[in-house]
């Protein structure tokens, strides 16, 4: 048994007794490996007595799970209405320019910081009142 199989097995064992264990399992697998790939889907499907298609359907439905790991750091920028009203579209180009190929800029719809946007998230850290300079700095430090 590979270490990956073993780790996923441990995650499954931790959640298996819960009602509706699939999402908590997927969260932990995504956290551990940076993705939920085909191999992981198969192991989880077998353990929960689901078809691989069932598990894949769930993985592909949610934005939080990715099929492949992306080694780049991520900056999630909110581009929903309230942040648009505060000018996120004017600074997004700066963020992208600063990011280049090194950082992934992803769009998130709402971080709940709607009176103090534009807002962004890196890991569990939140950032508000961003402007051209501060968003570029945020990306540089990501």
């Amino acid at each position: 048994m590979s270490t990956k199989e073993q780790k996923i097995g441990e995650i499954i064992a931790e959640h298996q007794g819960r009602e509706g264990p699939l999402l908590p399992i997927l969260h932990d697998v995504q956290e551990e490996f940076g993705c939920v790939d085909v191999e992981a889907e198969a192991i989880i499907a077998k353990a929960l007595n689901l078809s691989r298609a069932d598990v894949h359907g769930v993985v592909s439905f949610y934005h939080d799970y990715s099929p492949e790991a992306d080694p780049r750091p991520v900056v999630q920028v909110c581009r929903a209405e309230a942040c648009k009203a505060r000018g996120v579209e004017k600074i997004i180009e700066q963020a992208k320019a600063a990011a280049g190929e090194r950082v992934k800029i992803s769009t998130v719809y709402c971080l709940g910081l709607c009176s103090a946007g534009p807002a962004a998230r890196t890991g569990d850290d939140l950032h508000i009142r961003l402007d051209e300079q501060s968003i570029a700095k945020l990306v540089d430090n990501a």
Partner: protein
Amino acid sequence: MTQIVKISDDALARAGGADKLAAAFEAKGCEVHRTSSWGMQWLEPLVEIDGKGFGPATLDDVDAILAGTSDKAIGVIEEHPFIAGQTRLTFARAGKTRPLSLEDYAAHGGWSGLKRARQIGPEKIVEEVTESGLRGRGGAGFPTGIKWKTVLGAPGPQKYIVCNADEGDSGTFADRMAMEGDPFALIEGMAIAGEAVGADQGYVYLRSEYPDAIRKMNAALKLCADIIAPFKCEVRVGAGAYVCGEETSLLNSLEGKRGEVRAKPPLPALEGFMGRPTVVNNVLSLAAVPHILMEGGAKQYAERGMGRSKGTMPVQLAGNIKHGGLYEVPFGITLDELVNKVGGGTASGRPIKAVQVGGPLGAYIHPDQFDIPFDYEAYAAADALIGHAGITVFDDTADMGEMARFAMEFCAAESCGKCTPCRIGSVRGQEIIDRIRTGGRKRDELELAPQMHNAKKNEGRSVEEEIGLLTDLCETMKFGSLCALGGFTPYPVMSALKHWPGDFVNNPEAVEKALDAAE
């Protein structure tokens, strides 16, 4: 005596640098209490010393604040017009207590609702919640008491309380503030709901975009497990799907399935989580319950508000607004008061162009309609919705054509895919709006081919015809979609087109004519 300094540990204050500020005050020998947020977000991070506020504070202000010479002083916080004008019932403890302190919670009236609920029993609890007039704060406004009564009457050995904390609407943050600032109030509300309907298991479905709320709710549940027992409750983290804020899709997600909407009936009250009777309520509905269950609370709640919209609503002022934050008031207040008087107009200082009430699915409201009172029925009559009471302000630089297109784009990105009007309609909607904005549509190569006998060869589709098509599509989405995502996306689209035709085409008269013809 050590100086006590209060600084919020709300996510927004922390994003504004509250942690570093707290450390700086500690380094100066002060005792720092990390409390919940008052909700005056333009002043965050707000520093409170002896009831007086200073904000937005930075590290450079620390010395001046302690010396009493800071120009960031706002005076006594409770006398600030933004706070003094509110009626805080659900957010009674905001700014005053440390979120994870059981001692603070109990000292400010915590657990008295649950204690009383346990004495009066299920029927009386449901009766009082019904009497209070509380309606679901998630958006649909369904009477909470009636929902609970249905679940109470439903047969079944296992029932559930599910808290919908998937607050995905842009412009809303009251759920987040409630969970981060007063987590025990939500838990108490859930325990009371459990007592009322006979459920001993609760789930809080919390969106993954709220890391602070997840941490606080988990910690709070651990701390109060003995108090709420035999009721048990756990947090389930969402996975980034907006549609999971819809109750049936939330239930599917909770069960570990794709977050696809279920057709109703059966109602979740009868066949919800795992096919068993389930109460699904929004954070704000459940957090309002402990107050209602206090001695005389239901009556106090019902006395406020207007018409069939009883009690208070924690309104969220967001977007391009000068004084943004949480403002809890009885129903009936006008938009003008909220946006201009309380909110102080735009943050940019430019004139207000539009206000979106109710998140991404809410209508854009023109300043001409600002006298509309905050009331479920009044908004419905104006082809708008209160939703989760998020108010997003736009100044005159906003391009409403772009916002209408974004509404369709958002619907396409977040559609669960189960029903056609939403899944396909949203994509076609984007295309039509693009064509309206670029002046209609020429015949394409395929249509010009001689084999296409029925396609007109000489002309394309005019802007007027495209508008007719968009109106028709919106009707289909409104009445043919399974849930509010597809069903309400037409509100922002059509309201933008109706009020700001100039943002779509050069000759606004053509839009008016086309809209009239379409009706």
